[in-house]
């Protein structure tokens, strides 16, 4: 793994008997994970936008499952390499790869179950897709596989303040995990709203007390905020995050959300990427960490506030008007900031003494 000041390209022995995956190994793992994540994004797009899915055997499923096969083959290759070096049993599994080795057959079994489910019960095209037991097993095992490079970095005490390139496998891992969690919270995903929908949702007669769409957007903002800010807060506890981490997170999540929305939410997506850049500046200036508790909490609040302030600004610029209920579009970023602060307090309740 890569650490501050120098770069290690090859797998190396860890402190215990198990080896630690090298930078290249982790990068390949996460790139192959990207392959099957993109397959899932394509599948999500198809479920949302292709009205007649007649078969389980679609091109996007092929991309998804072939990506999984490639990832599985790669992890087996890594294990075999260690076996050839004389490591046996669990000792052949690199540090951080154990959950992925467990998740591979779980994913495969869930995939077989999903095939049977689609064949016998039918193909989901609505909110039921997010609650299908086989889909939940698939997504859980996917996350275990995708978070492998993050575990490698996390477990290495020498990795403290990595460069962006050094942190790339872990950052991609974090970003794709967040996007998958958001994918399965599609009923409360604020990123898929178009600018027109954002403006209309918070435009209502005050006497009516709101609308269904206003409730949905408000709930979606709070839910999406947690999914976007908690990964950054968690990672900031362990690493000094390099500039670009938040932008990468936003870009990957927008890859998913634009696909799901059939590319109708481009101004919203641009807003999230802009917010990502601003959050990176916050990371750079505040240097939040467990030891810098005040900055950590300010970061939790500020990152959330910026995300949603830019969200409404992007919608307003694109539509040429702001929502009519001022309390809603000014209050939502503040509420999100309070949630961000709360998460920071929960994750690091007090300074280490």
């Amino acid at each position, binding site marked *: 793994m890569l650490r501050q000041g120098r770069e290690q390209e090859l797998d190396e022995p860890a402190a215990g008997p198990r080896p630690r995956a090298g930078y290249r190994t982790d990068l390949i793992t996460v790139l192959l994970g990207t392959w099957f994540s993109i397959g899932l994004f394509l599948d999500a797009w198809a479920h949302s936008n292709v009205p007649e899915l*007649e*078969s*389980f*055997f*679609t*091109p996007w*499923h*092929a*991309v998804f*499952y*072939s990506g999984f*096969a*490639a990832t*599985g*083959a790669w992890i*087996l*290759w890594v*294990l*075999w390499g260690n*076996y*050839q070096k*004389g490591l*046996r*049993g*669990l000792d*052949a*599994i690199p540090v951080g790869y154990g959950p992925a*080795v467990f998740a*591979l*057959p779980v994913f*495969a*079994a869930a*995939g*077989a179950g*999903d*095939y049977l489910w689609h064949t016998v019960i039918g193909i989901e095209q609505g909110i039921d897709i997010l609650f299908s037991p086989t889909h939940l097993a698939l997504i859980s095992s996917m996350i275990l596989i995708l978070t492998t490079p993050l575990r490698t970095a996390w477990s290495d005490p020498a990795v403290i303040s990595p460069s962006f390139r050094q942190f790339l496998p872990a950052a991609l891992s974090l970003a794709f995990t967040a996007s998958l969690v958001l994918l399965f919270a599609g009923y409360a995903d604020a990123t898929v709203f178009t600018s027109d929908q954002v403006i209309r949702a918070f435009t209502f007669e005050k006497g009516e007390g709101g609308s269904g769409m206003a409730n949905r957007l408000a709930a979606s903002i709070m839910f999406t905020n947690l999914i976007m800010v908690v990964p950054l807060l968690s990672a900031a506890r362990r690493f000094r995050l390099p500039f670009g981490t938040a932008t990468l997170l936003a870009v990957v999540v927008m890859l998913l959300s634009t696909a799901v929305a059939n590319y109708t939410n481009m101004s919203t997506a641009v807003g999230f990427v802009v917010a990502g850049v601003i959050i990176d500046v916050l990371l750079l200036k505040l240097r939040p960490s467990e030891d810098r508790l005040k900055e950590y909490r300010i970061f939790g609040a500020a990152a959330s506030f910026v995300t949603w302030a830019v969200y409404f600004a992007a919608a307003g610029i694109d539509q040429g008007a702001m929502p009519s209920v001022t309390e809603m579009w000014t209050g939502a970023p503040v509420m999100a900031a309070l949630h961000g602060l709360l998460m920071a307090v929960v994750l690091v309740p007090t300074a280490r003494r």
Partner: protein
Amino acid sequence: MRVLLLVLVLLVTTATPARAHAGGLTPQDHLSRVTGIEPPLPGVTAAMVNHGTEVEIRNGGATPITVADHVVAPGETYLFRDERTTAPRWEVPLGTSVIKGRVDTTPGPNPLWWLLITAAFALGGYLLGRRQALPAVGVVVVTAAHVWHAVGSTLAVTGRPFVPLLIGASGVGLVAWPLTAVAVVAAVRRRPATAFVAAVVGAMLVVAGIPDVDSFRFSQLPFAGPGDLDRLLVALTLGGGLGLAAGGFDYMRRAGSTT
């Protein structure tokens, strides 16, 4: 090695089937056919396509014609599904005429023979797989069988673009097919990786072939070619893949135990 084998066995026995029959078509014993248009319409033809699931109307005449609430313009080809075409003898209105057809049922073959052939291929694959370089030959043959089966299944589909259908039919073939070239290169260079790649490709192709076991027991297969040829390709993919996976891992285990 035990962990490696355990993960692989679980992958092989449980992994999602990447069925090579494109377009959602499945093997069956019955097949719906058009017997004629009565009275005939000049220039207009009707046929059952996509394994007897859809009616295809080609209007080569000079006047538009209405079928299933759709007006088929001169020069147009129109595909539609109609539940009536599943009856033993059926009729569907076509303008002032009717399309007549029937469903033929043919008993399938005895699957035991095909399972025996699959077992024989598995034995052959195993014997090849446990050698140092020969597994690459087996990988090429088994992959070729899978590619042929996927292409033949895709060609059996009418009215949809070829490439997306082939990608859907290939499934894990998207990975296994390119890995075949890796196996050949590794074999030429006499690398021990040959056995690993052979085992992995074999395992993937077993996964790809499992859903096609149905081809062994049904008479009508959605394949552009003779049914027995498709069954042979499926047996080769399944049996050969299984043998290569077992032989390759056996080779790796023996090679690993000497290090």
